[in-house]
């Protein structure tokens, strides 16, 4: 049985031939249940790699498999559905819908994924349970996302990524705006939930100090070749 959740094989991507940003990822494998930190400085291609893994972008060559399915070979529609079913995303700036209340923000992925929706028998109870686990006050449910504090928005974003137990959580620098103490509390809360769900976490950061909290550290420079730079 294949234990890897992400498998990248000879993936090449650039926006255009004249682009000064061309990347090649020969090989990358992440096992199920791992908590992986992807380290790299700004502009190194971390976010592009995440976009490829999420299926927002399609590689020009090579394959990306998530849970054994080669997502770049799926149709656009199936890829969208597959992403909704399997991947929970936490953005750097959380990106909650500001006009929607907290519950609607958390439940949003269930609308697009039958699989994740079926994993939740009682949606409202599950939301309240997640709030408790993420130390969010009960009365926050009907608040509009725009009225929450930064810390609360972060935790709501985690709840949104976790709901319906997606097998893979991808987080793009979610702790970049936090101080060290707040980072630790946030990561602990996230790890607790991810372990409980048996999900895999791939988190991107440029902060090396976080590395001891993860199962594995991947330096982007070791897995990704900047073909545009190698030309010089």
């Amino acid at each position, binding site marked *: 049985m294949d234990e890897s959740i992400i498998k990248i094989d000879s993936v090449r991507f650039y926006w255009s031939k004249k682009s000064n940003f061309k990347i090649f990822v020969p090989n990358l494998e992440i096992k199920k249940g791992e908590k992986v930190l992807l380290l790299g400085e700004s502009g190194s291609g971390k*976010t592009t790699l*995440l*976009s490829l893994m*999420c299926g*927002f*972008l399609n590689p020009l060559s090579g394959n990306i498999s998530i849970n054994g399915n080669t997502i770049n070979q799926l149709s*656009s*529609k199936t890829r*969208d*559905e597959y*992403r*909704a*079913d399997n991947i929970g*995303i936490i*953005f*750097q*700036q959380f*990106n*909650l*819908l*500001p*006009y*929607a209340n907290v519950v*609607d923000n958390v*439940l*949003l*992925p269930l*609308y*697009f*994924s039958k699989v994740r929706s079926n994993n939740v028998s009682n949606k409202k109870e599950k939301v309240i349970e997640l709030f408790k686990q993420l130390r969010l006050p009960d009365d926050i449910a009907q608040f509009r996302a725009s009225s929450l504090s930064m810390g609360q928005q972060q935790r709501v974003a985690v709840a*949104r990524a976790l709901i319906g137990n997606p097998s893979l959580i991808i987080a*793009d620098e979610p702790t970049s705006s936090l101080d060290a103490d707040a980072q630790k509390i946030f990561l602990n809360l996230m790890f607790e939930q991810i372990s409980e769900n048996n999900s895999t976490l791939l988190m991107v950061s440029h902060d090396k100090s976080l590395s001891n909290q993860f199962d594995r550290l991947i330096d982007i420079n070791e897995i990704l070749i900047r073909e545009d730079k190698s030309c010089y």
Partner: protein
Amino acid sequence: MLLKLSFSSLYARLVTVGMTILAISVSLMLYMSVEKLRTSAYTSFTDTISQTDLIVGARASSVQLLLYSVFRIGNATNNITWESYLDLVSKEEVDWTVPISLGDSHKGFRVMGTNKEFFSRYKYRGNQSVSIDKGYLFEDLYDVVLGAGVAEKLGYKIGTSLVVSHGLKSFSDHDDQPFRVSGILKKTGTPVDNTVIVSLAAIEAIHVDWSTGAKIPGQLTPIDEIREMDLTPKNITAALVGVKSKLTIFQLQRWINEYPEEAMTAILPGAALQELWRVVGVIENLLLGISVVVIFTTLVGMAAIMFSSLSERRREMAIWRAMGASPFTVIGLLMLEAIFISILSITFSVVLLFCVLNLLQPWIDYNYGILVNIEMLAIKDMYVFALFIIASITVSLLPAIRAYWFSINDGMTIKL
């Protein structure tokens, strides 16, 4: 849930969306107003005279005869003799006639000599007759009945004395025979409003001391003597004719047009009105053109607003996509928004239209003689609305496709 969130999104952009709806509503309202005005102007124009089967005058084109006999514009090419008129009256097919004598004026308003039959036989807007608002119809030889517009513009009341001028330019007045206002007519929205009406006998009376268009020097017949005279007209300008049977209209028209004693013309008012409308119809086309431009501008404005709001919604689109929404869902949401805005704009514009029409209808009627119909929307309006919604959807496709590309390319990079 998607719809709920979509509406929440709209609500969150209340000011922008509200301004969009207001802008589109005002444009749509403007379009409908122009259309209402266009159709009402046509209706009011063609309803200026109704239930008159023929208008008879001296030989002239149908439009010219219509213009001077009904609209009091221009002059008659010639008069018809009273004998010819009596010949016409004696025809078996004729049910009724109203003689009209034109040529004089009072302070720019045309003076029309006629008989009392005019007030019951002249119909407009279907079956409406002119009726007295104040006072009574002419009883005395020197009584005058004023159209509502004349009375209002000149500030005349019952009992006011006035002098009729000879011809259309006031070079000389019939000041030896002043008239007295005996009645003021109700507003009709027709040229009657701007007409000074006297009896045919009065027209004869004021011309007793006149010959070939000029006053006979030194001749001043006393009024008492004039009253005793036979004031049967020698000529009239035109006559309105009603027939007993509609089947005989063309037969009678032919008889008049071929009348051997005098060159006369008989026209069908409806046909002549249509012909005249075609001449002035350029205004109608202009209004129609304005309507089309207004709608086009509205749609362009809508697209512009959607485009400008797109950048502020770029993040929202990317969130939808990240959560699993397909690009088609994103396009669908934008199109749904366009439909919602269109329907709300249409509803608001209709409410606005009826408010404006209710407010302006009396003013337009009073000042321009156009009775704007305030009625339920016609089927044609529904088609226009449906077309507008379809056009809105089409127009929204452009920003929607742009949003599609944004949402794909933004992917994980949304940092606003």
